[in-house]
C-alpha cells in the first residue's frame, strides 16, 4: 500500500530516537521556521568552524513524524561535513521532494535522506520534510553574514 512506503523504517527510527535534538551553545545563527498549514515548527542553530566545517546543528521543535525525522537525518548528515557539501545535499533533497515522486533520487548525494523519497508523492507532506532543511539553509546563510 502507498502509505507504508512513506513511513520507511528509517524515518520511524529517527522519529522515535531523534539524533542531536536539543538546542546547544555555541552557535553562529539561530532560525525559527513554521509550517502555517499544520503548525509544525522548528528552532535550529548552526555552528560553523574553520574552512566552512559544520561543527554542530542543534534543533528543537514539534510536528509530525516526517518533519521530526527529517531534522534528525539532517543533523547526522550535516555535522562534520562542510557548508558547501551540505548545501548541495539540501539542493538535491529539495529537488527530490518537489519532484512529485517522478524524480530519481541520487543516493550517492543524499545518503539516508533517500528514505524520504516516498514523501514526494504526497504534496501535502512535502513541506513537512522540507521544514528543517529550509531552516538549515537559512541558518547557514545567516551565519556567513555574521
Amino acid at each position, binding site marked *: 500500500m502507498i*502509505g507504508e512506503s512513506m*513511513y520507511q523504517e528509517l524515518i520511524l527510527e529517527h*522519529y522515535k530516537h531523534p539524533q542531536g535534538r536539543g538546542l546547544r551553545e555555541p552557535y553562529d545563527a539561530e532560525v525559527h521556521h513554521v509550517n502555517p498549514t*499544520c*503548525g509544525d515548527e522548528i528552532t535550529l542553530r548552526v555552528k560553523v568552524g574553520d574552512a566552512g566545517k559544520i561543527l554542530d546543528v542543534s534543533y528543537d521543535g514539534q510536528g509530525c*513524524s516526517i518533519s521530526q525525522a527529517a531534522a534528525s537525518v539532517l543533523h547526522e548528515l550535516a555535522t562534520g561535513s562542510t557548508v558547501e557539501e551540505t548545501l548541495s545535499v539540501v539542493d538535491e533533497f529539495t529537488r527530490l521532494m518537489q519532484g512529485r515522486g517522478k524524480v530519481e533520487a541520487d543516493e550517492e548525494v543524499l545518503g539516508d535522506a533517500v528514505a524520504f523519497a516516498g514523501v514526494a508523492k504526497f504534496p501535502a507532506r512535502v513541506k*513537512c520534510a522540507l521544514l528543517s532543511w529550509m531552516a538549515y539553509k537559512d541558518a547557514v546563510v545567516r551565519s556567513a553574514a555574521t
Partner: protein
Amino acid sequence: MTYDGFDVEKIRKDFPVFSRELPDGRPLVYLDSGNSSQKPNQVIETMRDHFALHYSNVGRAMHVLGAESTDAYENARDKVAGFIGAPSRDEVVFTKNASEALNLVAYSFGNPASTDPRFTLGPGDEIVISEMEHHSNIVPWQLLVQRTGATLKWFGVTGDGRLDYDPGLITERTKIVSIAHQSNVLGTVNPVAAVAARAHEVGALVLLDASQSVPHHPVDVAGLGADLVAFTGHKMVGPSGIGVLWGRAEVLEAMPPFLGGGEMIEAVWMDRSTYAPIPHKFEAGTPPIVEAIGLGAAVDYLTGVGMEAVEAHERTLTAYALDALREVPGLRLIGPDTLEERGGTLSFTLEGIHPHDVGQILDDQFGVAVRVGHHCARPLHLRFGIPATTRASFYLYNTTGEIDALVRGLHHVQKVFA
C-alpha cells in the same frame, strides 16, 4: 439501523460517491462531514437540470428563462425559511457561505450609514465571543475592534469541553454576543437560550454560528432566542458557494447594507442611493443562483428523511463511537465524553503520534477520511495545550461499521508507531 423508516443503507444509495472505490480497491469511509458533506443524487440532478434547461439571471430578465430561474431561486428561499422555522421568507439572506454571513453582521457595526444605536460601536463598547469559535467567528470581530476601538471579550472553555458560561461577562456595554451553536471541534452544543436571555437583558444582539447545528438537528430559529443565525449549504448535503444569514426582520431592516451593487438598490443617483427591502438589500450582484437552488433541493432531501431521524441516527453513532474510542489506549478525547448537549463530532489525540501521521495512515491504509489539524479553531487547541487533533464527524449516511473501521485504523496507526 431503522428509526421510523430511516434506513441508512437506502440513504447511502442516494449518494453516488459511496458507490466508488478509492485507489488500490480501498472502500471509502467518509468521516469528514463536519468539514463538508457529500451530495445526494437529488441535489446533483436538480442543479444539473437547472443548468441544462432553466438557467438565466434572476430578478431582472423579462423572458421565460428569467422567470423560471427567478422562481426557482426564490422558491429555494421559501424552502430554507420553512426548514429553519423562519417567521418570514424575507428574513432569509443568501450569502456565499457562513463566513460571509458572519462578516456581513460584523460590518454592520460601527458603520456611519446606520444610526440605530444597537449598531453604533466605539471605544468602551464590547463584543463577546468564545474560545471554542471557528476562526470565521473570531477574525471578523478582531477586524471590527481594530476599525472601531471596541473591546473583544470571550467565554473560556472548561476542561471537559463545555462553554465556561459566565453571565457577568455580558454587561451593559456589550453590543453583540456571537457564539457557535455547536462546536466544530468539541461537538459541544452551547446553552443558547441562557446566553440569549442574558444578552437581551442588557440590550445586546445575539448571533449564532449554526454551521454545525442546522445540518444535524431540527433547528427552529424563531424559538432559539437568537437575533441572527449563520450557516452554510455545503455541510448540509448542498453545494458549496451558498450560505445563509437568517435575521429577525426588524434587525435586518436596521442593519446598513454590506456590499453595494446591482439588485440591492431601489434607486440610484450619481451622489446617493436608496436600498431594496430585505432580503435583497444584502444580495448585491448576481447571486449563486444554481447553488441556492441546490440548497433548496438539499433542504427537501433532509426534510424527506426527517431531521428528527437524522439527529437520532447521529446520536446512535456518537454513543457507539464514544464507547469504541474509550477502548483505544492512549486516546484523549477533546470534548464532552457523554451524549448530553453534544453532536456527532469527535476530536482526539493519540499519545506520541502526530495527527497528520494518524490521518495519513487512516487514509492510505483504510480509506478512512478524517480531518487532522486545528480545524480553523487554533485558540481552542492552544487552550488544551495541543497543536492539532484528529477529528471524526458523522452524518446521516454513516454507519457503525465505519466507526469500527476507524477504530481498526487507529490500532494499526499505533502499531506502526509502537
